[in-house]
């Protein structure tokens, strides 16, 4: 498996579980009466779990890849740029929703959490497209 593909799966898995818990809690408790600090603390805890899982995964990978080239070549760059290009349009559309349309109806945490959900989904889509890029036949750019 290519180093970039491994990192895409790592990004997806390390981000998927903590944010599933975060958004799961928010969906399960729509009228959660928490203070600002409690909400920020919850978000910070989820972000820390994400960061810790990603960094740990990266360290394990670097150890496994010792001596092996992890440089990207033209195929990696083509797959990465395709995935990033598609994710960019998703981010653009979601930011239009969150930043242009939603403020007329929502505010506060609803806006912030929707924005966060869009960022998480965009990154998940990018990681999935990178991973899928190694499975589908491709031409060079």
């Amino acid at each position, binding site marked *: 498996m*290519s180093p970039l593909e491994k990192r895409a799966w790592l990004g997806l898995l390390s981000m998927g579980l903590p944010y599933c818990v975060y958004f799961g809690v928010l969906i399960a408790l729509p009228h959660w009466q928490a203070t600002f600090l409690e909400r920020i603390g919850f978000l910070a805890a989820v972000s820390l779990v994400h960061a810790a899982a990603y960094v740990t995964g990266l360290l394990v990978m670097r150890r496994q890849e010792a001596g092996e*080239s992890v440089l*990207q070549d*033209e*195929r*990696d760059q083509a797959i990465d740029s395709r995935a990033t290009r598609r994710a960019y349009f998703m981010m653009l559309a979601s930011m239009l929703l969150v930043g242009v349309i939603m403020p007329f109806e929502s505010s506060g945490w609803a806006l912030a959490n929707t924005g966060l959900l869009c960022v998480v989904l965009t990154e998940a889509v990018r990681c999935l497209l990178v991973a899928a890029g190694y499975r589908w*036949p491709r*031409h*060079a750019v």
Partner: protein
Amino acid sequence: MPSESMRNEVRLLRFLAQDMTQAELGKRVGLTRQTIAAIEQGRYSPSLDVAFRIAHVFGKRIDEIFHWQPGDDPH
């Protein structure tokens, strides 16, 4: 799709070149071992630049290594 219209002799040429490894060929043309494997399996069509470099490594013309056949789908 590249695998339908592009074929190549990279695997055979590696074998004929004292069984050169994918990693060694990759190092000489600036690709990773995984990309050389993808080219051999028809899952990736390299850029013209890389195709010329592969041909140069084996001392062949580019059309002796890479073969293109028109398919039904022009795209």
